[in-house]
C-alpha cells in the first residue's frame, strides 16, 4: 500500500492549498478548456472529495465532478491528480503538495470539468466482451447450490473486485493509439469469467472476443494499468497469463 506522507507544518498552521482545475463545458459553444485556480484552507483529514465540495459550495457552484460513495468503493470519482489517475474521494490532501492540479480522465467522453462518461464506455465493453456467466442449464432455485471450492470462490472475487473506475484505461499506452482496445478492465473481466467454473465458455470462445490487437495481443506491457489500479488487481500477471493461453489457442 501507498505510504502516507505528512506535510503538516510544525507550528500547526493549516496550509493554503491551490487547486488548479481543468475546466470545460462541452454543452457551451463558447467554452474553451482552461485551468482555473481555487484557493482553500486545508483541514485535518481533508480528502479531494471534501475539498471539491467545499469549493463548489463556497466559491463556484458551476463546478462539475462526480462522487457517489465517497468511500473508494463505487469508482465514480477517478480523475487525474497531478497527472496520475486515481480516486479523488480517498486521496488525502496531506499526501499532496500545496499546488494540486486536477483534470478529467482522458479517453472517456467529457461531460464537463472533471466529469467523464465512464458508464457508457464500460457498458459498451461489457456488451462487446459479453461479461456475464454463460450457462444454459436452468437453475433450480429450490435445490442446493452447485458446490465450489472455497479457494476458487476467493480467487474469482480477487478479479471480481474491479470497480470500472477507468484508471487503467487512462493510464494505458495502447488505448492512446488503438481506440477500440479493451484495456486492462476488459481483459481482467475475461480472466475472471475464464476462471469461473460456472461459465461454460471455452478458450475458443474467449479467443473470438479478445484474440486480436484490440484484445490481449494489443497490450504492450507498459504496466501503466497495473500501477494505477486503485484496487491493486493483479492486472499484469492476469494479462500475461491470458496472452499465453490465447496464443496457444491461436495456434490450434
Amino acid at each position, binding site marked *: *500500500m501507498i505510504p*502516507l506522507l505528512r506535510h503538516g507544518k510544525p507550528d500547526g498552521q493549516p496550509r493554503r492549498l491551490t487547486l488548479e482545475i481543468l475546466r470545460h*463545458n462541452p*454543452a*457551451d459553444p463558447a467554452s474553451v478548456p482552461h485551468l482555473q485556480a481555487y484557493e482553500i484552507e486545508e483541514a*485535518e*483529514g481533508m*480528502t479531494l472529495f471534501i475539498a471539491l465540495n467545499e469549493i*463548489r*459550495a*463556497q466559491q463556484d*457552484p*458551476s*463546478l462539475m465532478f*462526480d462522487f*457517489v*460513495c*465517497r*468511500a*473508494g*468503493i*463505487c*469508482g*465514480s470519482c477517478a480523475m487525474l491528480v497531478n497527472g496520475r489517475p486515481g480516486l479523488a474521494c*480517498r486521496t*488525502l490532501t496531506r499526501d499532496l503538495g500545496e499546488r494540486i492540479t486536477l483534470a478529467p480522465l482522458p479517453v472517456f467522453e467529457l461531460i*464537463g470539468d472533471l466529469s467523464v462518461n*465512464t*458508464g*457508457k464506455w*464500460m*457498458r459498451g465493453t*461489457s*456488451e462487446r466482451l*459479453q*461479461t*456475464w*456467466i454463460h450457462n444454459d442449464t436452468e*437453475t433450480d*432455485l*429450490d*435445490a*442446493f*447450490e*452447485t*458446490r*465450489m*471450492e*472455497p479457494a476458487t*470462490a*476467493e480467487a*474469482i*472475487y480477487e478479479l*471480481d*473486485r474491479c*470497480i*470500472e473506475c477507468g484508471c487503467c484505461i487512462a493510464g494505458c499506452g495502447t488505448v492512446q493509439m488503438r481506440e477500440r482496445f479493451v484495456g486492462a478492465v476488459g481483459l481482467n473481466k475475461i480472466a475472471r469469467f475464464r476462471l*469461473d467454473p*460456472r*461459465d461454460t465458455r471455452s478458450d475458443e470462445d474467449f479467443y473470438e472476443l479478445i484474440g486480436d490487437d484490440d484484445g490481449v495481443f494489443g497490450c504492450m506491457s507498459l504496466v501503466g494499468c497495473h500501477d494505477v489500479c486503485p484496487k491493486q488487481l493483479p492486472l499484469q500477471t492476469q494479462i500475461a497469463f491470458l496472452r499465453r493461453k490465447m496464443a496457444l489457442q491461436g495456434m490450434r
Partner: protein
Amino acid sequence: METIHTDVLVIGGGLAGLRAALAARKRGNSVLILSLVPPKRSHSAAAQGGMQASLGNTAKGAGDNEDVHFEDTVRGSDWGNDQEVARLFVHTAPKAVRELASWGVPWNRVQAGEREAIIDNRRVTLSEPEAAHGLITARDFGGTKKWRTCYVSDGTGHAMLYAISDQTIAEGIPVHERMEAVSLIHDGLRCYGAIVRNLIDGKLVAYIARATCIATGGFGRIYQSTTNAVINEGIGAAIALETGVVPLGNMEAVQFHPTAIFPAGILVTEGCRGDGGLLRDVDGHRFMPDYEPEKKELASRDVVSRRMEAHIRSGKGARNRFGEHLWLDITQLGALHIDHKLREVKEICHYFLGIDPARQWIPVRPAQHYSMGGIRTNAHGAAYGLSGLFACGEAACWDLHGFNRLGGNSVAETVVSGMIVGDAIADFCSSSGGDMHLSTALLRECADKVRAEFSAITDNHGPENPAALLGAMQAIMTDKVGIVRHGEQLAEAVRELTELEARSRQIGLRNHRPGANPELTLAWRLQKMLKLAICVAHGARQRTESRGAHFRTDFPRRNDAEWLKRTLAYWTDPAQLVPSLHYEALDVRHMELPPGWRGYGARDAIEHPETAHRMAQIETIRAQLATADRHAVQDALMPFRHLLPRHLCGDNARPGEST
C-alpha cells in the same frame, strides 16, 4: 419534448431496480431503466457485510430455517413490520442467494474441517461438516439467532450488483444513465411514467410506461452524519409523495449504524462485530456486556447505537479533535482474517484514517444508515394510491423492516422484492389494468408543471444559497431528529424545517451554466429533500412512544396498546406545511408472532389488548398440530404462499431437512 415509450419503466439501477427489471423482462415486457449514475455505481455497491438467507450450511447455522429467520426479523423490527411480507421474504431469500450464485456471485464457501473463530472474545474451534464442503457459508450478524449472513469477503453488495447488472446487459435491457426522474405522470388515479431530466444537457424527456417502478434507494443525505452515498437524496420517494395520493410509510423509522468511522461517516461493516470485533470506551473497557448481557455487541443496531450514545453521554467517550467517539477493536481477529474477509474495512482504515485495523482500534460513532420508511406498497409492491405505480428496495415501505432493519436483510430484500415485485408488474401489464390511454393534454400539463418548478428557481433572484440551506437541514436532522429524540426538540425541528422550506423558495442562483447546471440541480432537489425531512420530523413528533430506531426520552416505552400502527404521510396540498398523517393498524389477531420481548433491549412494552388472546390461540393451534411438520403449523398460523408467484412457492433444500 422528446417522448420515449416502454412497457415498464424502472426508476433506479441499484439491486432492487435491476432485479425487478429482469423479472419483468423475463415475462416478455419491454423494460427500460433510469439511473442517476451508471448502475454499477449505485449505492448497493457499498454494501459490505452480507445478505441474510437461512441456508443453514455451516456449523453455527445448523438448525436455521425460515421460521428462525422470520422470528429474528420480526423481533428486529420491534413488531413494526408486516409479518406476511416477512414470510414472503424469508421464504424467498435462499432462492435469491442461489440464483445469484448461478449468475456468478463468488459467495464465500464452507471449508470442511476445523477452523478457528472468535466468539464473544474467546478463540474457539468450529468444526464444519464434510457434507457441507463447498456450499455457501455464512457469518454472524446482529440480532440473529444463527449465523445466517452469506457474504463475499466484505464486498458483498459489489459482487451482487455486478452480477445482476451483467445479467441486465445480457438481456439487452437499456439503462439510461445520468437521467433523473423529476415527476410522475399521473391523473390522480393512474401513473403513466415519469418526466425525466437529463443530467448532462439539462433537457426534459417524457418516459411513458404502462407500469412504473420506483427503486431509487434511501434518503440518508437529509442527515449530516450518514453512511449513505451522496446520491441518496430520496428524490424517488419525494416525487411519489408530491402526487398527493401516494403515501410514504413510517418515515420516522430511520436507522443509525453503530460503526461509522468518525468523523467521516464511512461505514465499517457489522461483519466486524459478527466476526468477533468488540466495542471499547475511553478506558479500553468493553462496555456492551454491561448493557446487553445476552447479545452484547450483536444486539440489533438500534439498541447498540443507543447504548453507545448513552455511554458517550455518561462521560466514557474517547475524544479527538472532531469530538467524542468510541472504539471498534478488531485486532484480535488477526491480519490473515482481515486480509481475506474484511479487506474493504482494511482499505477504508488505511486511506481515510491512516491506520492498520489489525494493530489499531478504529474510531467509530453511530451515523444515519438506512431508511426503513418509504413509498408504501402492498405485498406485491403496488404503491398505495396510484394504479400502475410500484416500488421496491430501500425506496419502498413494503414493510419488511418495521422500525429497525437487521443487518444483511436489506440487500436480501432488494433482490427478493425485485423478484416478487417484478413478477407482479408483469402480471399487471398482462391484465386489463395494464391497458393505458394517456391524453396529450395530461402529458402537457405534467410537463408544464415541471418546467414551472425549474423556472421558478432560475427566475428567482432571491438571497438564499442552496448549499447553505442544505447544510442547515442536515444539521437539524442530525441534532434534533437523531438517535435520541424528545418532543420539544422534534417540535423545534419541524418549525425550523418549515422555515427552511419557505427559504428554499427564495434561492438566487449564482451561476447560469448551460447544460445541467449543478447548482440548479441542487436547488431543485433541496426542496424535495426538505419535504422528506419534514415527514420524518413530523412523524417522529406525533409518534409518542419508542419503537425500534425511533426512541423518545419523553416516551421511552414501546406502546403496543396505542401505537401498533404504521404512519402514512400524505402531502395532499402543495401549500400545506406538514404532511397529513394517517395511521394503518397492524392486526395482532392475524400475527404469527404476537408482540413480546425482543430478547435484547428494554423489556417494558405496554401490551396490546389482543395480544394475550392471540397468544392463546397460537398455543391451541400448535398443540393441535403437534405432530405436523413445521410448514403445516406455519400455514395454519398465517398462510402466505398465496401472495407468491407460483415459481417461487417451492420449499428450500437445506442440510438435515428432507423436502
